[in-house]
């Protein structure tokens, strides 16, 4: 749900406050203090000289541009801003959170977009009356990007959230990693582009792959990143945006073995319900090289809906048939997980995957990613093979996915 936007309507909180003062030892009195749950101390974050936690220019919401030429107007009103890798960060600053003791709900809402490593309230950060400011550190930058894009200007408990990056909280090492990842991503993206261009006369499926990838993007128009000020005729954008459905898909699975899991589960700390957050753990490093070659358009959409149902605080209407489909899919997922270590023999069809030497290898250079990709392939095979069913399967389906005759109104 997107509220109508206008740069002028957004309260310019920061400019109405008194002059900024050093944060050390200064605590802004908050009427909401009494209702807040116990929170981790703000000095857990990278405070070296008190600078993080100040207002920075990049925290201030820039006014929306209203003088754009029609041909380059965007779907949503946007400010004139350039996003570079410097500005983006795994740390997000969230302002405008109504002080109603909803920290848990806020974190849960953001956790939809990826594993959260750390979060805390920034008591000292200047905020409007009856609102709070939070800092959320995602494990992955990509999660933060998506979360920012999705949650900025969203309504939350009656208030409008303003979400921005907070790179000043990064350590040197985190900044270094961020820059290197960006470089690696571009190297991969350019390399894979060349790969596709040169190999397009090979397997026809591969060509279809590229097309389906492009279709996939066009089916999810909202996924053009905040950085891209694209117009209506935007063609396929960042491979980054491929990763989101994968994230949602894996968010339902239990943690699979792999070193990424240990890191993720160790870092999901903070004195809160660990089990709840591990549900949303991103298990694998996002690799834009994830050729969504076996993706069909239906799957990402249902994955997205699935992510919605995981959050109880987001009350969206979902048709019952979709819910039934989701439940069945989840059951199948769990079943597959149970038999994960064995080869997927649920059908008599040819196994698509690393075992098949004929196909070009889609090695994602990561164990857990490969695992996930295998799961997806298995799932897709099932979907594809759902037409020539055995009577037994058909019967099972009848109970879970009743193919009633639709009532004609």
């Amino acid at each position, binding site marked *: 749900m997107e509220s109508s936007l206008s740069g002028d309507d957004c309260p310019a909180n920061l400019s109405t406050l008194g002059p900024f003062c050093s944060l050390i030892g200064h605590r802004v009195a908050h009427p909401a203090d009494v209702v807040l749950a116990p929170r981790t101390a703000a000095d857990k974050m*990278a405070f070296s000289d008190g600078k993080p936690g100040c207002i920075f220019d990049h925290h201030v919401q820039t006014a929306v541009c209203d003088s754009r030429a029609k041909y380059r107007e965007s779907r949503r009103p946007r400010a004139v801003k*350039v996003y*570079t890798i*410097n500005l983006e960060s795994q740390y997000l600053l969230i302002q405008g959170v109504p002080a109603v003791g909803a920290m848990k709900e806020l974190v849960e809402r953001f956790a939809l977009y990826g594993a959260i490593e750390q979060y805390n309230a920034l008591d000292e950060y200047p905020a409007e009356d009856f609102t709070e400011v939070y800092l959320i550190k995602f494990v992955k930058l990509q999660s933060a990007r998506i979360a920012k894009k999705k949650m900025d200007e969203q309504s939350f408990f009656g208030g409008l959230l303003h979400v921005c990056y907070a790179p000043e909280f990064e350590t040197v090492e985190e900044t270094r990693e961020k820059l290197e990842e960006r470089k690696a991503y*571009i190297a991969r993206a350019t390399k894979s582009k060349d790969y596709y261009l040169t190999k397009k006369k090979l397997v026809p499926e591969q060509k279809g792959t590229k097309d389906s990838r492009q279709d996939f993007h066009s089916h999810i128009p909202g996924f053009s990143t905040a950085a891209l000020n694209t*117009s209506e*005729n935007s063609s396929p954008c960042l491979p980054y945006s491929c990763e989101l459905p994968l994230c949602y898909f894996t968010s339902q699975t239990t943690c699979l073995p792999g070193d990424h899991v240990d890191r993720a589960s160790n870092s999901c700390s903070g004195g809160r319900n660990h089990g709840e957050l591990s549900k949303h753990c991103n298990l694998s490093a996002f690799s834009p090289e994830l050729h969504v070659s076996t993706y069909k358009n239906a799957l990402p959409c249902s994955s997205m809906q699935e992510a919605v149902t995981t959050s109880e605080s987001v009350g969206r209407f979902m048709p019952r048939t979709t819910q039934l489909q989701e439940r069945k899919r989840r059951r199948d997922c769990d079943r597959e997980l149970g038999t994960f270590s064995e080869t997927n023999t649920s059908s008599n069809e040819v196994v698509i995957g690393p075992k098949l030497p004929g196909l070009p290898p889609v090695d994602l250079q990561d164990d857990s990613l490969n695992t996930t990709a295998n799961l997806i392939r298995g799932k897709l095979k099932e979907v594809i093979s759902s037409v020539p069913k055995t009577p037994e399967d058909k019967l099972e389906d009848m109970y879970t996915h009743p193919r009633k005759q639709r009532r004609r109104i």
Partner: protein
Amino acid sequence: MAQKPKVDPHVGRLGYLQALVNEFQETESQDAKEQVLANLANFAYDPGNYEYLRQLQVLDLFLDSLSEENETLVKFAVGGLCNLSPDKANKEHILQAGGIPLITNCLSSPNEETVLSAVTTLMYLSSPGTGSHPELTSLPLVQCMLRFSLSANIRLRNLAQIFLEDFCSPSQVAEARSQQAHSALGIPLPKTEAPQQP
């Protein structure tokens, strides 16, 4: 107000980028220039566009815009360069076009984002360790980075530290440090105050 060029909405990405470039070159409005440049700089984030951007000579457009008086244009242009410089082909193009001095000039900008983008771009243009472009480890530049590494601005400090650690040899850093007292301290640190109250 910006002009409205007659663009067929179905021409696709290349056509759209072409329209942007045209508008940038033809318009008189500073607002429109800023908007278009920001648009192009954001497109430069996506590797999928690099072929088009090279074809339309947007890299040169960015480099040219570094000399603009309008600081916003400089900020956007160097941001665009920062976005696309990790790519090998783009990097070579920038180096061949003599981009290093232009970007190094941005280090003296009063705008925080401009400086940050410039430092990052220089890092992406370098190769780690020895063997990088000699201009990228020149004494004035290393000295500048040394100053930045002492800045109160955390982001700048972090970036400068990475530059010194990963792209300069210890001897270069030591030499810069020893000559610190004699260097021309003409490179001011960017302002980092909070937004002023009305």
